[in-house]
């Protein structure tokens, strides 16, 4: 195993840093995503509700960055703002674009987001086709990712003929094939069963390992965060902001099952839970108060 941690997540004991030290990374010029004072307010029945408050964040180039938080902490809002699908109320989000005509970001959405009316191939090549990329290049790129995700034999199938895990593989292929600067992932595996989830996490890591693009990955699963991430941001519940940053010291490439055997793994999971505990109970109290809560609770 060749450990080549470019961002050098310090190996050894678990390091938990306070939210304020986020600015430390700003000094480095390899910052890919820079967020300052990000605030998002929504109008709910004439009342202003703050979803995100004064969030500062730096994500270095090539980092697999995880965001963990209780439900309703604004993590999806944060990702949508980064994807330009939503706009901030205040503050700024800057993505340092490498400007080679490639798209800034591609998102892997939560749940079923591939088009039911397109075949696997048409779905996976969507971004490239919309950009008018040369046919031969589309064939090579999409073919590569369908190969990687084991979908080559299913390329002419329609989504309803596929299992949930395979549909999410199409979504992964679509995002990777689009060759963006950063990849945004919004709980892509939350709808899958435990076995499929583990398989897909493993596949995702293998595919990511080829290019090591910057990833921002949202999850409500602490296990998922520790398994996949280089660095984890724990968010506060409502309004959402950074509570703590946890560095994950595991080398790459990783083996998902092997990882979970290690004593440090449990340590980090425990550490994050420590950070999260208060937030989860706060979020649950709020949910209960809202009575009409159909939301998924944190954890399972």
């Amino acid at each position, binding site marked *: 195993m060749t450990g080549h941690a470019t961002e050098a997540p310090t190996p050894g004991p678990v390091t938990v840093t306070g939210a304020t030290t986020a600015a430390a990374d700003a000094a480095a010029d390899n910052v890919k995503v820079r967020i300052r004072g990000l605030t998002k307010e929504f109008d709910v029945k004439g009342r202003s509700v703050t979803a995100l408050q004064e969030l500062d964040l730096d994500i270095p180039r090539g980092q697999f960055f995880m965001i963990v938080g209780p439900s309703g902490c604004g993590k999806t809002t944060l990702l949508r703002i980064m994807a330009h699908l939503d706009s901030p109320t205040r503050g700024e989000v800057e993505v340092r674009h490498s400007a080679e005509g490639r*798209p800034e970001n591609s*998102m892997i959405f939560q749940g079923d987001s591939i*088009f039911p009316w397109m*075949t696997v191939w048409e779905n996976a090549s*969507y971004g490239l086709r*919309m950009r008018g990329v040369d046919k031969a290049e589309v064939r090579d790129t999409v073919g590569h990712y369908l190969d990687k995700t084991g979908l080559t034999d299913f390329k002419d199938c329609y989504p309803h003929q596929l299992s949930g895990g395979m549909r999410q593989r199409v979504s992964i292929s679509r995002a990777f094939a*689009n060759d963006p600067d950063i990849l945004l992932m919004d709980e892509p595996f939350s709808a899958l069963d435990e076995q499929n989830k583990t398989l897909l996490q493993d596949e995702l890591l293998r595919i990511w390992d080829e290019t090591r693009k910057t990833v921002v990955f949202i999850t409500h699963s602490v296990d998922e965060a520790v398994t996949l991430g280089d660095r984890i941001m724990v968010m506060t519940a409502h309004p959402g902001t950074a509570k703590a940053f946890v560095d994950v010291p595991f080398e790459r490439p990783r083996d998902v099952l092997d990882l979970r055997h290690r004593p440090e793994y449990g340590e980090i999971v425990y550490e994050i839970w420590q950070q999260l505990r208060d937030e989860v109970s706060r979020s649950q109290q709020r949910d209960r108060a809202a009575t009409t809560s159909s939301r998924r609770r944190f954890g399972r």
Partner: protein
Amino acid sequence: MATTTTAPPAPTAQTRARRRGGWLSAPGRGRDRLLAVATPLILLAIWEALARSGAIDVRFFPPPSSILEQMARLMSNGELWPHLFASLRRLFIGFWVGLVPALVIGVVMGLSRPVRAALGPLISGTYPIPKSALLPLILLIFGLGETSKVVMVAIGVFYPVVLNTVAGVAQIAPMYYDVSKNFGASRWQVFKTVAVPGAMPSIMTGIELGAGLGLILIAIAEMVGAKSGLGYMIWNAWQLYSVETMYVGLLVIAIIGYVMSLLLAEVSRLLMPWRADR
């Protein structure tokens, strides 16, 4: 592992065995089809028997055999064909004249809130007017020629298609628009790759309804303001008291409707391969 791989075929084998069973004892496609054909045939046989035995008045209900005889006569002496082709031609032209603007307006309304706000009340406000009640006005405006007939069909096609298209575009999950935006689709590409295919099932339902309504309206329009067409043939037969010819007209219209629905089902299958085995 072995159990999981061998388990799935078992239920399919069972279902197949059940399907292969006798047509009365087991539910299945074959039995459904048989029933669908048998029921009308049995009813026709009863009708024939009742008419021949004099139990029903043959002036109103001529035996099916005499209706078929009349139909054969009208086909061989060539009387039926001009009427049939006149109606089909009006249906065909009117269909497209109604369909194209309905699709364009429907999709644009579905995608654009201001357009929906501007046109929505107008369309849903005029929709409940019985289209047949418009006939005098249409005849007044477009005269007794072909145009008025085509316009009637077009009106019949337009409403169901436009309303179903708007509803179809509106029910597309917002996530698909997010996806297309995230992957850099232009407005035209969103139209082509999300709005139209996403609304297609609903659009096809609208087209089926519209085609049916068009058929109703062409028959009515031809009864009043035409010298050709199946509607005219039926109306003329009433005046000449040729009851069999009236029934032939009704039968031919029913056949047109049936063929039309088969055709549209086939078009649906071609346009929406992603729903092929549903």
